[in-house]
Every structure is written in C-alpha cells, then in structure tokens.
C-alpha cells in the first residue's frame, strides 16, 4: 500500500468518525430539544394551574372584602345616627343647663321670647322629662289640714 493510499484511508476514517460524532450529537441534541419542549409544556401547564388557583383565591378574597365593606358602611351609618342623637341630646342638655330666669315667687320660667311659662310646661317642652303630679306632706298639712290630721291619727293606730 502506497503512502498516499494510507493517507487516503486515514482521511476516510477521520471523516467517518466525524460523521459518527455529528450523528450522535444530532440525536442527543434532538432528544434534548424534545426534553426541553416537554419541560416547557410542564412549566406552562403548571403556570395555567397556578393562575386559575390564584384567580380562585383572589375571587374569594374579593367576596370577603365586599362583605367587609358593606359591614363597615352599615357600622358607619349607625355611628352617624348615634352621633346625631347624641348631638340632639347635647343640645337639649345645653338648653336646660344654661341660666334660667325664674320668678322668685310663683316659680314661672321666662323663655327667650319673654313669655313666662309654668315650670312643668317649660321643662316638658325643652327635655324628654314628663311630669306626674302628686302632693307632698308639707303641702297636705298646709292646704288640707283636716285631711292631714286624719292621716296622722290613722298612722299612730
């Protein structure tokens, strides 16, 4: 075999090796590509799943939030109402807590327009208080002395 034949044979061997190497690389690269595609799909599916789970969680949280907002609005309205009642009560308390011009003799009270009212009438008008009339023992003695004496006699027995 001449040296050029040997060279040619070696070159053929080298080329065959190169073809075999590239064939192996190509097959492995194809396998890796398929693997990467399946991994990509795996990630994509997981992502879809995660998105739908997260959406469900957000919907639930949103529903809870709406209920909470309504509850807060209701509480707020109740608070407003209470404040208004309180303010009204405070105003009334203020009327009765100021200086009241009162007659030293008949105990009538003078209002802002200068009109003199009976004390019962005035207080009833400016507060929630109501009057129930009775008579005290001193006034019984003064106004109804006979009835007073009779009462005392009965009590002693």
């Amino acid at each position: 075999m001449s040296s050029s034949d040997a060279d040619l044979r070696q070159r053929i061997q080298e080329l065959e090796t190169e073809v075999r190497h590239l064939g192996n690389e190509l097959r492995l690269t194809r396998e890796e590509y398929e693997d990467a595609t399946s991994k990509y799909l795996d990630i994509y599916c997981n992502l879809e799943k995660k998105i739908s789970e997260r959406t469900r969680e957000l919907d639930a949280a949103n529903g809870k939030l709406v209920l909470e907002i309504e509850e807060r609005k209701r509480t707020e309205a109740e608070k407003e109402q209470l404040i208004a009642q309180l303010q009204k009560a405070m105003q009334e308390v203020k009327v009765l807590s100021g200086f009241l011009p009162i007659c030293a003799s008949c105990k009538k009270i003078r209002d802002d327009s200068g009109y003199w009212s009976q004390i019962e009438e005035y207080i009833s008008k400016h507060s929630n208080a109501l009057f129930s009339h009775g008579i005290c023992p001193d006034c019984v003695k003064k106004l109804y002395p006979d009835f007073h004496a009779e009462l005392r006699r009965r009590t002693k027995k």
Partner: protein
Amino acid sequence: MDGAKKTNISLAGLLELVETSTLSSIKGTVGGILSLISDPTASSSDLIKLIELDPPLTAKILRVANSSYYATSKTIGDIQQALIWIGFDTLKEIILTQKMSELYRGGTPVGGYSRLQLWRHSLGVALLAKTIYRREFGEKGNNAYAAGLMHDIGVIVEDQLLHREFMHLVQVLEDIPQPLTDGENSCFGYDHGLVGKGLAENWNFPAELIDGIGFHHDPEGAREEHRLFVKTIFISDYLMFEQGYGYVAMPLPDREILQQYVRDLGLQWYALRAIIEIVREELGKIEQKGYLIA
C-alpha cells in the same frame, strides 16, 4: 517522602473536619443536583425548588445564562426562562459548576500548583469525559461531567484543611518530581482519591460517582459495573495533563496504561484527537469569556 511535612490527622479525622468547614456549604445543592442528574424522571419543578433554596445561586445562574457564552437572543429574567432557553441538562451543569467553583477561590500559587489551575484542570476533564460520552458512546454523559468536575475534590480538601503540609508537598514535588499520590501517601498516609471517595460516600453521592472520584488513578479498583466509566475519567485526566491543563508538577503514569484503557473503551486515537480539539476550543472560549471562575 524526604523533606515532606507529615500530618497526624487521619483520613477519618480529615473527613470529620470537612463537615465542620466551609467546604460542607456546597453539600446540599451539590447532593441535590447529583440526585437530579441520576434521576431520569426528575422534573423541572424539582430543579427550580432546589435552586430556590439557595438565593445567591439564582443570581449567579442568571448572570451565566445571560453571558455572551450562551448568547441567547433574549434577556433571561428567571429560572423558568433559563430552563427553557438553556435546557435542563445544561442548567444542571451550570449549577454544579457554579457550586463547585466556590471551593476553588483564593489561595496563593505555590510551585506549579494553584487553585485556579486545579479548577481549569477539573473543568477540562469534565468537558472531555462528557464529550467522549456524547460523541463516542452516544450518551448524554451528565455523570461523566460531574465526575470529571469532582474527581480531584480530595486535592481541594487537602489544600484547604491541611494547607501548610499540602503547600510544602507541592513545593517538594517541583524539586523532586514524582506522582502526587506517592507524595500524599508519604505525607498524609492517604491520597486525594481516598479523601474524595470518603467525602463522596459521606455526602451520599451516586455509586458511579463515588468510584469515579475514588479510583480515577486506579480504575481496576472500581466496581466492575463502573470500570469503563472510571477508565473514561482516567483517560480524560491523563489527556488534560498531557495537553497542558495540569495543576501540579509531576510525571504522568506509564503511557501504556493509557493505551490499554483507550483500547478497553474501544476508542480510536484519531477519534480522541478530534474530541480533544473540540474540548480545547471550548476551554479557550470559556477562558476568553472570563467564565473560568465564578
């Protein structure tokens, strides 16, 4: 060995020291990645979960994924995108490479030895072993890459934990050339293969990897089912030293052993030469892009 400083630390003592040293910081992630490499059913979410446990790693992966080395057409913003654009297997290799590179930082060059040279050698052996698997055997060779990257983990353990004695040893090797394993046996009573094997066993590495690390200087000592795998690591280790990717001044073993293992694997020299050329180009690209050290 004359002139070498001897140590009193036993192999078991050294392996105990590893567990309390900074070396053990890579244990969780590296162990997790090796499990994923060995498990064909592992899913992308398993890998993402593993990365999420190590936040600084995410930033490093994204930096590497966006580097000109991978030259993707778009900016990769998260691990999911990295997984799609770079691929599951490459991403596993990036993680393993990043975590392992943490052990090779720092250090001062002494004699013909430096941590950077050792890392360059490990990366070269990893690429060569993987390319032999891919081009010649038509297999992915993820375990071959991992074994190549970690085959000298025992050396970095000695460098970090028996630093003074190891530095003295590499200095002596420069003056009196002899195999590193002989020097280690005289100095420590064990060699880096045994240290690496012990560490790989303690960290529950896959059996093939334990043999690849433990017997890369003596493939005949490995379990029979792993012998061809370990011979691939031996051949890659030998050839990278021969190609100028060594890390310590020492004579190589008898070339006849290499020839025998090449025959055992059914490899042809012209095929190996073509593969070496691919790896040299790849390493050149890695060094040129400044990707050698994290």
